[in-house]
């Protein structure tokens, strides 16, 4: 049974959860991807393995944390190890199925910028940089980007490629020696995929109560738009209950 009452962030978390299959290994940062991953694990993907880059596997937090450095999100982990273990012996080894990524801005080819806005050789403001994001974008079998739907965040080209998507599109990513790549961009208005040949962003579904005009007017470029664009599947009542009552009761992540 689908929910009537949910926030855009909750819908994004549910859409993220639906990208995860049972038995997969997912590398997550903090925020919505955590909600998405725990939601998947409590519903259709009980054998999902959740990794945090600093050396955490399958925690069961009971308090919400402020970030990966918060011991609240390490609680009841099955493994506590290291970057070399997580990012080296799982991710670089090729075992991470899905990586969730977010950022300051993404572009028509799924490149992500978390480093700086402005001109890197001139005036710019520096942000948080890569952390494990570049590593995940380079070595995960597929990545899912979760980002707000704003023209300043969805641009034809980002000002700095922290985490490569399909670079200039086409076969540019393979030419750079990278496998995988982004498969979805989830915003608060729509879900996008990538055209298999040009690797350009392509609209896949529009969230309930959002129009195509809303989607396009709030982007810095024109994505590919098929003739028929379905409506995004809404969250179920049970998914929203889990998010609100168990996964993010203080509503820190999912707004």
């Amino acid at each position, binding site marked *: 049974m689908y929910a009537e009452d949910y926030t855009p962030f909750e819908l994004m978390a549910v859409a993220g959860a639906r990208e995860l299959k049972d038995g997969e290994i997912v590398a997550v940062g903090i925020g919505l991807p955590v909600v998405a991953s725990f939601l998947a694990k409590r519903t259709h993907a009980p054998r999902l393995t959740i990794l945090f880059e600093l050396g955490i596997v399958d925690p069961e937090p009971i308090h919400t944390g402020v970030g990966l450095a918060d011991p609240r999100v390490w609680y009841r982990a099955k493994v506590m190890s290291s970057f070399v273990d997580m990012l080296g012996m799982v991710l670089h080894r090729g075992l991470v199925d899905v990586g969730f990524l977010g950022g300051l801005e993404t572009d028509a080819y799924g490149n992500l910028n978390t480093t700086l806005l402005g001109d890197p050789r001139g005036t710019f403001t520096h942000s948080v940089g890569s952390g494990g994001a570049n590593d995940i974008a380079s070595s995960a079998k597929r990545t899912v980007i979760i980002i707000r739907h704003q023209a300043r965040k969805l641009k034809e080209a980002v000002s700095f*490629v922290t985490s490569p998507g399909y670079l200039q599109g086409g076969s540019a990513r393979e030419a750079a020696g990278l496998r995988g790549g982004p498969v979805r961009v989830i915003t608060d208005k729509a879900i996008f995929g990538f055209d298999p040949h040009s690797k350009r962003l392509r609209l896949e579904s529009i969230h309930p109560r959002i129009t195509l005009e809303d989607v396009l007017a709030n982007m810095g470029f024109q994505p590919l738009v098929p003739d028929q664009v379905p409506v995004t599947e809404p969250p179920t009542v049970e998914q929203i209950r889990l998010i609100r009552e168990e996964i993010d009761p203080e509503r820190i992540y999912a707004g």
Partner: protein
Amino acid sequence: MGKLATLAEAVASIPSGTHVALSGFAITRCNMAFAREVIRQGIRGLTVSQCVGAMDADLLVGAGAVERMIYGGGSLDRFGRLNNVNRAIESGTLIAEEYSSLSVAFRYLAGALGLPFIPTRSLRGSDILARLQQIAPENIGTVQDPFTGDEWLALRPLVPDVAVVQVQVADEEGNAWIFGPRWDNEEQVKASQRVIVITEQLVPTEIIRRDPERTVIPGFKVSHVVHLPFSAHPTSVYRVYDYDAEHIREYAAATRTVEEFRAYLEKYVFGVQDHWEYLELIGGMKRLTSLMADPILGY
């Protein structure tokens, strides 16, 4: 002959211009008391490295002690960005050799293992790599895989002069345990020429021998052991104390401008003689006991 030292003694062993690897990650196990003492002693021109930039590095950069930072990006988690680091990068006063977490971890690992270089898939095709090729071309190379003929990016080993590591438990030889995830700390230690251990708890070697699988820092790498409770404040030490959210918010606010940060330094760094005065200043026993970790939760 002994390695037990005061914080001031340990810090005095670090000349200006040294490459220091720091154990902090965002707002946990940061070398905060160490950074405050470095600033008080007027040490400058440091190269600081860590996989994820943390509050210890931000404090040092804000005080003008750092010339170069080798890191993979960083923040104060939800409390904010590394404003001092970012401002120094934007104004060109800090050379930022910026990688990804794994790239720095691999550089430490290569240093630890005595490898001449380490190949990696990370960074390819990114502007991180393009920028590194300008800022630090001496640390970036390419190698051909002798088995497939493929070309790989190769990184130079990172061998810090000294790793400064905040731990929960150590003995007077420097054999030390880290509880919780260890992020880059083991590779930092094993890559570095020597190690300064700053420990919350000092135990007899007898205790170390009871659980030697936990010993991630071997005493033979350690030059100084500093026993200094609450030395990571306001950041957390898993199983010992939680982060001090109120103080980190104050810090994040203070780092918004150079002037405000100068006032922060005057108050919390130059305004106290040592760590004990600092602890009194931030609220003493009453504040600190409120941060003590629950023995089950670890925070």
